[in-house]
């Protein structure tokens, strides 16, 4: 992302944040209508966590097909960002839950789902730390990601059947209860955070490429060579 893009993203997010406080009306029907504004930040973070999980699974699959080191780096970068947004979603969610339901943690299906996603990411990083050889690490972690993915989809699908949910359902796309300005602000926030996501993702890959270049300078390194060869694609 070039400098203009970064500045625009910054202005955009700052603008949406200001709008969330000054333009957005308090959400009636919540216990503390003023605090409900956090929803416009919370929901995009949660959605991005799931997006990151999907991106990680897709790159894991592509890695197993292509065995290209850069594809593995992409899968890893998606997982790292997924972890970051999972933490943000959990923290903002807990803050709101304190206000709304009186306790920070309620074993609500969506709360549980996101914690399970964090567990999967944690397991993924532990696995990557436990394998020394790079290509083997990439192979095993990709395989693990592709095992965890269907399990998580299952979990997210079955949890609401087992536990009662506190979250409203289907607010994002069709809901008459919430002011339409909420939907606009929320998706604007999402667009801003998505830009941040893409920017951080590319930044992570640049770090990976820089490391490969360093390795190549110190000794002839075929893995680094292959990694760098992928840069132009």
């Amino acid at each position, binding site marked *: 992302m070039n400098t203009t893009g970064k500045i625009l993203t910054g202005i955009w997010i700052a603008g949406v944040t200001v709008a969330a406080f000054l333009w957005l009306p308090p959400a009636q029907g919540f216990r503390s209508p003023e605090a409900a504004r956090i929803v416009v930040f919370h929901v995009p973070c949660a959605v991005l966590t799931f997006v990151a999980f999907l991106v990680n699974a897709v790159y894991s699959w592509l890695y197993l097909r292509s065995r290209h080191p850069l594809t593995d780096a992409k899968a890893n970068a998606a997982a790292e960002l997924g972890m970051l947004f999972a933490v943000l979603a959990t923290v903002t969610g807990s803050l709101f839950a304190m206000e709304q339901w009186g306790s920070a943690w309620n074993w609500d299906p969506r709360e549980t789902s996101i914690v399970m996603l964090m567990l999967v990411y944690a397991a993924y990083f532990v696995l990557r730390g436990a394998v020394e050889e790079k290509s083997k690490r990439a192979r095993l972690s990709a395989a693990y990601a592709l095992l965890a993915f269907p399990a998580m989809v299952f979990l997210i699908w079955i949890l609401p059947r087992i536990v009662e949910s506190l979250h409203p359902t289907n607010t994002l796309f069709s809901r008459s209860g919430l002011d339409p300005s909420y939907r606009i602000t929320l998706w604007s926030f999402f667009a801003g955070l998505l830009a941040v996501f893409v920017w951080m993702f590319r930044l992570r890959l640049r770090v990976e490429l820089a490391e490969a270049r360093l390795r190549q300078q110190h*000794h002839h390194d075929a893995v680094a060579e292959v990694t760098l060869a992928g840069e132009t694609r």
Partner: protein
Amino acid sequence: MNWQIELRRISKVFDERVVLRDISATVTAPGAWTILGPNGSGKSTLLRIIAGLLTPTEGEVLYLYNGERLTAHQRRQSVGMVAPDIALYRPLTALENLRFFARARGLPVRDSDLLRWLERVQLRSRAHDPVASFSTGMVQRLKLLTALVHRPSVLLLDEPGSNLDEAGMEFIRETVREQAQHGIVIIATNDTRELGYGEPLVRLGA
């Protein structure tokens, strides 16, 4: 029959370590070949790549039978391999090991056949003893037997004579001679006693 193995520009890299660089060769049945080179030159790695146990970083190994490429399954059915780091099941007896590898390969063998095979390598009397109780030479003979149980067209041997006495070496020599008459043998070695087994195929540097 017309067997051919083609190594096309094989390279293998473990992280920063380049083990094999751009190796090409062709082997046509029948005959015996050797892969030569000092310790650590990548002989075992190359043999494992030929066996399909290891995927090369670049290049490929082609198995051709009458010009047709073999599937992974056909390749498993036509390759037998003996190497120091490929072990038998030590808690199982000689007969149980042999029986497992025969059945796993889908061979309809009876125990009487297997016992006759064991007879050939002077292990008939130890058929019901666990492999853990065997001497190095006995283990090596049993390994060779399990590698030959499906009558493979391609036999791959990694340092087959290491730790063997003269009688053991004679057994290897005989097996190689027999196999080289109808199929392919590739031997990785730096033992001067084994150099005469076949023509040099690849000579690896340190």
